[in-house]
């Protein structure tokens, strides 16, 4: 996977992606990839150019799916593979390069809100053996009054309602984390539609907005900078919103699941008020509505029993070990976890579920402590853009810059696409990288392969914002850190220069240099400098960036003056690399189709 920036094209072709799932047989395709719903989505939004974003492991199915969709809608969809960042994120930028007006995202998703295009998520559902799962649940939670929170991997989300129905009767304390970042489009489906989409088109909002069940769901920005499934306050009309939301929560709160089915299989669309955009860039992961605590996390939402906090719950996760699971485990570090992998080996007598002992989680959290110390010791910070679509990323980058400046660290911003060690090792002078990315991809676990550590914005803040007290937790969603987020902490006032305490590094045992004073240019120096033999006046001191650059071997493209033959000036291509003008986008599309 790891390829540097300067790798050749043939390398990309020869590269082996992670073992792909075997192709789905054609009769399963429509169901698994929800062709019908996708077609509805396309028609509803009157899309003309649809991009289908496939993760590497589902790529073998891409062509058949595209064909089926073409048959269903008459459109010729484009297939988007090799996502710029994590394959869980919607790659809006690439889609826009292809002039697409809508996107269908396949496979696992982090459900991070994006900004521009209407997006439909198709999770590529898998069958869930509900009986086995229930058995595992019984086995893991023999006490009927346990407070359990049911979470599931997205590919099993379609079956979670069935599962909930069975368990809800036995376990009154059970809470279901519903997937809210989407609106069910398949209200008539017998089973709960999981892979619902959330869409926003301004034209449609009228017909949808007054549906009585606005649902606990979704809302995905049709236009403008928005998203925000999290905050239920997305309705245009304040009162409507309130009424709807409260009504909705009431239902959920009272008979937790009675109304659930109706609601989830529902679609709601709304448009945003411009004024609310600001608010909605950030997230409130925990809200209080009518005494109930509503927790929203990574596109899932649930209500806690009144008077309880998240730490009172144990979490039952249906799905295999994955980054998503790790992410939720470290985010809710006070909860006990149990997992059930439906595809795990089935042993006799063993139902398959197991309690996570938290050792791994504790290790991960402890390792972050080390990273925080690395940040504290760092002089130069590299801020990496790990997303170009997620809401609030610009603000986060801006905040990271501010934090770095306050702490007296220099910073540079990088956009390098997918990360790999070779790319980042090109910048050996950076001490620590801060990755601004979706919650799932910002947690890089195999850090030892990278020359310099990569941290999350939260760790950056912990290290550099003295006002933030760190209790060993980890916040992977950067939106929580922004003003308005639940975990927002304003930057500490600059200490007066007199009382700066000497800080001892816990890594090297040396005193850390105090943050340098804000840089002041001393241009009016009258010192006389002597000219050297090359008639250069020694200007730069030893530490200047210029002198550093002189020592670097790579100084840009070589000119090779005199070596290259002369030629007439010709007009070159115009545009950007992904589609030059005159090259024709259609051709690309055809190429994709043929493939």
């Amino acid at each position, binding site marked *: 996977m790891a390829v540097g920036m*300067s790798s*050749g094209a043939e390398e990309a072709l020869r590269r082996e992606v992670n073992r792909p799932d075997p192709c789905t047989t054609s009769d399963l395709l429509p169901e698994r990839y929800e062709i019908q719903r996708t077609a509805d989505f396309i028609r509803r939004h009157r899309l003309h150019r649809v991009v289908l974003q496939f993760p590497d492991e589902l790529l073998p199915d891409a062509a058949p799916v595209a064909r089926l969709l073409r048959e269903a809608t008459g459109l010729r969809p484009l297939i988007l593979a090799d996502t710029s960042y994590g394959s869980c994120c919607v790659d809006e930028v690439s889609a826009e390069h292809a002039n697409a007006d809508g996107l269908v995202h396949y496979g696992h998703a982090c459900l991070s809100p994006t900004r521009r295009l209407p997006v439909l998520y198709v999770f590529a559902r898998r069958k869930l053996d509900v009986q086995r799962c229930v058995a595992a649940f019984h086995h893991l939670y023999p006490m009927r009054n346990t407070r359990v929170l049911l979470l599931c991997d997205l590919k099993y989300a379609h079956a979670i309602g069935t599962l909930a129905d069975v368990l809800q009767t036995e376990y009154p304390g059970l809470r279901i984390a519903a997937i809210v970042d989407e609106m069910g489009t398949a209200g008539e489906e017998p089973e709960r539609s999981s892979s619902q989409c959330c869409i926003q088109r301004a034209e449609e909002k009228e017909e949808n907005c007054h549906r009585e069940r606005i649902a606990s769901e979704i809302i995905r920005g049709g236009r403008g900078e928005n998203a925000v499934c999290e905050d239920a306050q997305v309705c245009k009309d304040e009162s409507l919103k309130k009424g709807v939301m409260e009504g909705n929560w009431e239902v959920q709160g009272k008979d937790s699941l009675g109304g659930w089915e109706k609601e989830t299989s529902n679609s709601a669309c709304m448009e945003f008020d411009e004024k609310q955009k600001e608010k909605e860039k950030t997230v409130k992961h925990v809200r209080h509505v009518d005494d109930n605590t509503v927790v929203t996390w990574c596109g899932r939402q649930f209500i806690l029993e009144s008077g309880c906090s998240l730490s009172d719950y144990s979490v039952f996760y249906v799905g295999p070990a994955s980054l998503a699971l790790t992410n939720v485990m470290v985010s809710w570090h006070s909860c006990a976890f149990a997992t059930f992998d439906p595809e795990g080996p089935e042993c006799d007598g063993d139902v398959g579920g197991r309690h996570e002992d938290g050792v*791994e989680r504790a290790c991960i959290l402890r*390792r972050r402590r*080390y990273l925080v110390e690395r940040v504290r010791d760092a002089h130069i910070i590299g801020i990496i853009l790990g997303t170009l679509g997620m809401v609030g990323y610009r603000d986060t980058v801006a905040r990271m810059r501010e934090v770095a400046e306050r702490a007296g660290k220099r910073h540079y911003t990088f956009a390098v696409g997918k990360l790999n060690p*070779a790319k980042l090792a090109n910048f050996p002078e950076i001490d620590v990288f801060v990755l601004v990315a979706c919650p799932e991809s910002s947690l890089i676990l195999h850090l030892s*392969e990278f*020359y310099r550590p990569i941290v999350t914005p939260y760790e950056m803040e912990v290290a550099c914002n003295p006002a933030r007290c760190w209790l060993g937790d980890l916040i992977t969603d950067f939106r929580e850190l922004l003003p308005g987020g639940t975990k927002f902490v304003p930057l500490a006032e600059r200490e007066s220069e007199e009382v700066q305490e000497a800080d001892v590094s816990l890594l090297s045992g040396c*005193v850390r240099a105090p943050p340098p004073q804000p840089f002041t240019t001393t241009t009016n120096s009258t010192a006389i400098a002597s000219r050297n033999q090359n008639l250069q006046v020694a200007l730069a001191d030893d530490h200047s960036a210029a002198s550093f650059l002189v020592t670097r071997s790579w100084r840009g493209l070589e000119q090779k003056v005199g070596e290259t033959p002369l030629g007439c000036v010709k007009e070159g291509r115009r545009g950007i690399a992904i589609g030059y003008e005159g090259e024709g986008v259609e051709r690309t599309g055809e190429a994709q189709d043929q493939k």
Partner: protein
Amino acid sequence: MDTDLYDEFGNYIGPELDSDDEDDLDELRDVEDHVQDEAGDDDDEGGEGDAEDEPGTMEVVLHEDKKYYPTAEEVYGPEVETVVQEEDTQPLTEPIIKPIRRKKFRMMEQELPSTVYDMEYLADLMDNPELIRNVTLCGHLHHGKSSFVDTLVEQTHPEIRKHLERDLRYTDTLFTEQERGLSIKSTPVTLVLPDSKGKSFLFNVMDTPGHVNYSDEVTAAFRLSDGIVLFIDAAEGVMLNTERLVKHAVQERLAITICINKIDRLMLELKLPPTDAYYKLRHIVDEVNGLLSLYSDSEVGMMVSPLLGNVCFASSQYGLCFTLGSFAKLYADCHEGINFQEFAKRLWGDIYFNAKTRKFSKKPLASNSQRSFVEFILEPLYKIFSQVVGDVDVTLPATLEELGVHLTKEEQKINIRPLLRLVCRRFFGDFTGLVDMCVQHVPSPVIGAQAKVQHTYTGNLDNALGDGMLFCDPDAPLMCHSTKMYSTDDGVQFHAFGRVLSGTLAAGQDVRVLGENYTLEDDEDSRICTVGRLWVSVARYQVEVSRVPAGNWVLIEGVDQPIVKTATITDPSGSDEAQIFRPLKFNTASVIKIAVEPVNPSELPKMLDGLRKVNKSYPLLTTKVEESGEHVVLGTGELYLDCVMHDLRKMYSEIDIKVADPVVSFCETVVETSSLKCFAETPNKKNKITMIAEPLEKGLAEDIENEVVHITWNRKKLGEFFQTKYDWDLLAARSIWAFGPDSTGPNILVDDTLPSEVDKTLLGSVKDSIVQGFQWGTREGPLCDEPIRNVKFKILDAVIAGEPLHRGGGQIIPTARRVVYSAFLMATPRLMEPYYFVEVQAPADCVSAVYTVLARRRGHVTQDAPIPGSPLYTIKAFIPAIDSFGFETDLRTHTQGQAFCLSVFHHWQIVPGDPLDKSIMIRPLEPQPAPHLAREFMVKTRRRKGLSEDVSINKFFDDPMLLELAKQDVMFNYPI
């Protein structure tokens, strides 16, 4: 009162009272009151308002609004918080308002004690560097350093006297030191002491701990001193730490004098005849001389002998201390016409006195004639001791009369020990012998400056600054070297302790504090601070001074913030050429590791603050965050860490702290040359690096670590070193690229490519990147992320892309690291663990038990010999540090407390077994057989660090490399 309702004792026995009824009654009554009040008010209207607290005149006040008591605010004024609680939330034992607790961890005098000299005089002496001696008292554990200082303090402080039968331990100021009965910190004492001629000298004496765990304290003290007095127990002789201290003092180029202490033990405890006592003393002197000649490179000078005057004899318990000279002077004082200096020269060695001719001769007159030392020194001593002990009433008065010692009637009745002490004190007087010895043999700060500064200063001495230091000039620019930090009584602040080498340090002055990382090129590690007060420290009290000139020791307030371990304090401006004094170089290493964590996670910042403070307080302590996120504390031994944890919990953070089981640091190494050339291509396939790994020559790793060889030397010098000392060929010796993981790291990267095969200029252009990859790799080895040690990596071949674009750091660095790893893994990797050297003293019947205990802990004995002139045996052994936890307790249990041991880090040794052997099953909670140990250590370390159970090798190998491996069938154990 209805008497029927009460018994004769006045107890109520009537029908049960219903309290509700009563309330109702009260209420009724209240209502009535209200009515009456109102009526009364009505009546009083217009009249004088009789009570201020009467509510408003005409209002109807409901019962619940009625106020019976004033509120707290009314009584106490605003800003008083009233807390009303329904039930007790606080136990009775806990006071509601807690008294302010004053933290105090040290014993300090409340005010300046009276001294035999004037404090002004002491301060005046500070201006005469010729009259100053900076001396460290060091020695093995319990060889009597602290009690020797006690006697010095008693001589100069008339009010400070030790209690009967209990040591004063004046320099053990910490409560923990008193409780443990051993010194933990080195403590400075400044005294004015007269020599035998009555001339006063200012003595800066540092009392150091004798336990090997605290060797770091001794190192810090050595740095500030010009000479040492090495204390040796006359009965025990040269012990483990004595030997190490001799070596260390020689390395630090200090003047060495010895004091053979506890000579009373020879008489009272071992009951040796005088001749044997002489042999025993001579044996000690010979042993020290043996060590001196072993450790000192130069032939000249290094020698101790009573004849030279650098050996004194003492018994601090009984307050006697003499050199040959001072004893001879005793004779000279009562016998006219004796040249005591000449006499002293004849008091040691095989010299006999012929009473008839009144001449000294080299040959014994008769077979039973005594050596002069025995005749003139030991026998009189024996006489005094035996008469005080055995014959107080009959012969003692006559003897004392003869000696000119007068005892009052009361004094004659006191117990033997105090009496003996009194007699010795009266007879021998002040410790002028010691003073003479130090004055003669320890250079004054002026004379010692040359050696001191040349040895410790990193900068150039050919300038005004250098001159100032070399001549100990109080008017030169300020240079002060601080090596220790003492925390204040309450553990909140620190005072830096140092020595002014040139210039004068004044209270309230602005100074520049240079840290250990300061260089002229990188001046980040320097701060401007304002000096607070200055003191001369005398263990339990401090004499405040306004200025301290060159040559003195000083305790400085206000500069502690930027100092971690050592610092250089200099003038804030002007002295731009000032460089730092070398950081301390210790003679031991911190290999024991404990991980700490606050019980309550929210107290982490408090703990970190505490960690920073203990880090300042202990010179050799390392506190850091490991990559696994654990906060680890590295110390020299169990006792050391125990003290650290005490300070951390009680003094500096006052929180509950969890401590993980102690572990040790490991290293990773190889034992063979890589079985094949390992190569890796960069991700862009444009570069290819080939390396092999092989073990370093024996001793080379230590030489690099001890900075015998520097990577910064020029090629020629570096090459010569390796050619001559380690027999490298010229080509290899000249093409050493780097040491790793840092400039003193015990691994070497060598460019072994041939100019005919490899484009050297291209290779040179990526040298930095390869070195970075090499250092990155050696910092965390592939086995369990522990540093690599003792490995030489050879670059055999390199294909480097011609275009600079294709050989950027991003391509080369990670690839170089991968090659380092694959070469390492192909060269039979092994783990290394630290080994302790243990010295056990035990009576003969316990020796076998010691063997048993050692054997159970993988230890092995190297030497086992009786201590001459005593019933004890010394057993020297090696034991793996990881198995040494609890060894001391175990040993004592098995020998009924008769054996005593000290252990100190000695070397790194390979752990038996192949760490990568997957066939080994590690069963939990079972001791592993020896060949499984490496595997066990590796797996458990990986688990602790949160790494995957096994080393996944394919991360480090390219596919073609793997094919090659498969071809050669060398992958037996390795998981792919």
